[in-house]
């Protein structure tokens, strides 16, 4: 933790990020069906992981900071998980006085 990481770590991270940007932009032009969104989000997650690990120094962080970073994702998964089950298992019924398009 006392000596700074070598500069090449940052340069390689940046090269990987730009490479992933080119990859996601290129892949978005191919018809992959449902995988278009999945690939886009997976590449975005990989980019965020690179930024977190090497630019934000999570790779060298203390256990406490690493726990807080992971806890952030945990709370986010609760937000999406619980709200997601709510939306997935309920349907909107129109009340008698709503306009024909349901709003």
């Amino acid at each position, binding site marked *: 933790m006392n000596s700074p990481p070598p500069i090449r770590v*940052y340069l390689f991270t940046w090269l990987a990020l730009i490479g992933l*940007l080119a990859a*996601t932009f290129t892949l978005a032009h191919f018809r992959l069906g449902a995988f278009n969104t999945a690939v886009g989000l997976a590449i*975005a997650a990989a980019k965020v992981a690179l930024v977190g690990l090497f630019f934000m120094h999570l790779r060298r962080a203390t256990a*406490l*900071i690493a726990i807080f970073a992971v806890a*952030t994702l945990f709370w986010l998964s609760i937000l999406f998980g619980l709200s997601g089950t709510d939306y997935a298992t309920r349907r909107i019924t129109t009340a008698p006085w709503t306009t024909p398009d349901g709003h």
Partner: protein
Amino acid sequence: MNARVVPVDVPWRRETASLGMWVFLATEVMFFGVLFLAYMHARIVDPQGFAAASRLTHEWLGTINTGVLLTSSLTMALAVRNGWAGHRRLVIRLLWATAVLGLAFIVIKGIEYGLEWRDGLVPVLNFTYSGAHRRAVETFFFLYFLMTGVHAIHLTIGVILVAWLAIRDRDPARPVRRRESAECIGLYWHFVDSIWIVLYPLIYLVDLYR
């Protein structure tokens, strides 16, 4: 507080500052999280509408802007890294490079907003789109302006903080080695970059293959 008498190399001070920043960023993730959740819900309700809306965005400007922001994260990370190594002049140059790249992002985003205003895609103020899936397209652009707007505000704050750091670092009496301020502003900058990284495919890449 006089920086000359405060011992800056106390490890716990640095760790406390970083931890505090991570807690703040966790609240920021929840703040942006609900907006992403709203996007997810609206997109599931009308996927074709969101695809149609995404085709109306300017994917080249968005892609260039992503590259600009990723590069600004490199210069920011290198500024923090070289502060760690004690290279003051290099730190100042890298901080200015970061601020300029951040400004470039905001300018490109402004050009994009201008094009969307011209095309009548701004909900409430100037929305003239009348094709299929009108309601979903309006929802998409409402979320688009809300999320990119809040992101741009965050980035503007980041540019101001980075410029402040660069100006302050000219004072040779101030130590540049491992300062909490630089590390915390660096974490904030990378967080703002990360939000954009996730926004990018959701805005521009939904339906490019058509």
